[in-house]
C-alpha cells in the first residue's frame, strides 16, 4: 500500500489514533492526564522521542538487520547479497535496547544544552522507555513500510511522518483528556466511578467520537 504524506498524517493523527484506536501509550494517557501542563509536556516529550527513535530504528533495521543491498555486509564487506545474514529476528531486542539508550542520551543532552527544556520535559523522559508507544511506533514502521525485509518506496519519509504525526495524535488526545479531567475534578461523580473508572469511561466516549473519523476515506 502506498501512502501520500498528507494521507499518512490524517491516518496517524485521527483515524488510527495511537491511544484511542491502536491502544498504544495507555499508561501515560491514564497516568499523566490529570493536569493540562504535564499532559502537554508528556505529549511533547513522547513526540520528540518517537520521531528520533523511529529514525534510529529505521537506520538500524535497513543497514544492519534486514538482508538488503543497503546492509553494511553487502556494501562495505562485499558479501554476495544471498549470503548477507538475516538478523531481522533480533528486531525486538535491538529496538528496546536502542530506545533505552537513546532516552538516556537525550536526557543527558537536553540537561546540558537547554536547562529550560529539561525542566519542561526532563521528568517525563525516564518514564518513556517503558512506554509502549515508542517501541510500538518503531515496530509498526517496520510492519507497514517494509515487505519481507525490503523497504517499500518512500519508507524512510513515511517512517518519519508516521512517527511525528502519531506523536501529535497522542499529544492531542492527552491534552483533550487532561482538559476533561480537570473539569471532572469539580463534578459529582458517583463514588465507585471516581478516579480511574470514570477516566476509562471518558476515554471510551472520546474513542466513540474518534470513530467518526473512520468514515473518512483518505484516498
Amino acid at each position, binding site marked *: 500500500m502506498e501512502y501520500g504524506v498528507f494521507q499518512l498524517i490524517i491516518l496517524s493523527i485521527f483515524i488510527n489514533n495511537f491511544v484511542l484506536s491502536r491502544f498504544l501509550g495507555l*499508561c501515560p494517557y491514564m497516568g499523566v492526564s490529570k493536569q493540562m501542563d504535564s499532559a502537554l509536556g508528556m505529549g511533547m516529550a513522547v513526540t520528540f522521542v518517537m520521531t528520533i527513535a523511529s529514525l534510529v530504528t529505521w537506520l538500524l533495521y535497513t543497514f544492519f538487520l534486514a538482508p538488503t543491498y543497503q546492509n553494511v555486509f553487502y556494501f562495505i564487506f562485499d558479501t554476495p547479497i544471498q549470503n548477507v545474514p538475516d538478523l531481522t529476528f533480533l528486531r525486538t531486542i535491538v529496538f528496546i535496547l536502542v530506545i533505552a539508550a537513546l532516552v538516556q542520551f537525550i536526557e543527558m543532552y537536553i540537561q546540558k544544552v537547554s536547562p529550560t527544556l529539561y525542566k519542561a520535559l526532563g521528568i517525563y523522559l525516564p518514564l518513556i522507555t517503558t512506554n509502549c508507544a515508542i*517501541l510500538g511506533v518503531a515496530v509498526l514502521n517496520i510492519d507497514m513500510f517494509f515487505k519481507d525485509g525490503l523497504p517499500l518506496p518512500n519508507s524512510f519519509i513515511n517512517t518519519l511522518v508516521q512517527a511525528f504525526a502519531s506523536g501529535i495524535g497522542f499529544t492531542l488526545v492527552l491534552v483533550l483528556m487532561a482538559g476533561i479531567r480537570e473539569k471532572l475534578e469539580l463534578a459529582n461523580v458517583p463514588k*465507585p466511578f471516581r478516579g480511574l473508572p*470514570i477516566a*476509562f469511561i471518558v476515554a*471510551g466516549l472520546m474513542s466513540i467520537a474518534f*470513530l467518526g473519523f473512520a468514515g473518512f476515506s483518505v484516498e
Partner: protein
Amino acid sequence: MSVGAEFFKGIYKENPVFRLALGLCPTLAVSTSITNAIGMGAAVIFVLVASNTLVSFLMWLFAKTLSEEGLNSINKIRIPIFIVVIASFVTIVEMVMAAYFPALSESLGIFIPLIVVNCIILGRAEGFASKNGIFLSIVDGLGMGIGFTLALVAISFVRELLGSGQLLGAMIMGEGFKPVLLMILPPGAFLVIGLYLAGLNWIDARKKQA
C-alpha cells in the same frame, strides 16, 4: 508470606490489570475475543515465569560470586540486563508462535513484541524476582500471569459475547440477537474496563462497610 498467598495475591488482591492498572495496552487491544485473550495470557505467563526465574537466578549467582564492589557496579546496569533477558524471552515467544500458531500470531500482531514493554514483567523482575528466591519468583510469576490472563478473559468475555454474539468463536446468542458492534470496536474496551473497575470499587466499599 506463604507460598499460597504469593500465588493468590496476583489473582485478586494485587491483580495487575484491575488493581495495579498495569499492562493496559495489550489488555484493551487483544480482548476482542477469548481466544486472543488466552493466547496473549499464555504468552505473558511464559515470559513472566521465565524472566522471573532467570532474573532471580542471575541475582543469586551475582551475590554468590561477585565482590561487594562488583555487585555495586552490576547493580547499575541491573535494569538493562533485565530488559535483555525479557526481550530474549519475548523473541522466543514471537518465533514459536509464528511457527506453530500462525493464526494467533497474526491476530495478536505487534502486541507480541510489545510484551517487552509490558510494565508487569519489568515490574515483577525488579520488584520481586531480584529480591527473592527462584521458587517464590516462579510462584509470583505464575500468580501474576494467571491474574493478568483472568482479567483479559473477563473483559473479552463481555466484548465477544455482546459484540459478536459468540463465545470462543461459537454462536451463543439466538437468531434475533443483533450484535452490539461498539463492544468489539476500541470504545467497547474502554467502557468495559471502566465498568469492571467501578464494580470492583463498589464491592470493596461494601466489604468495608460490612
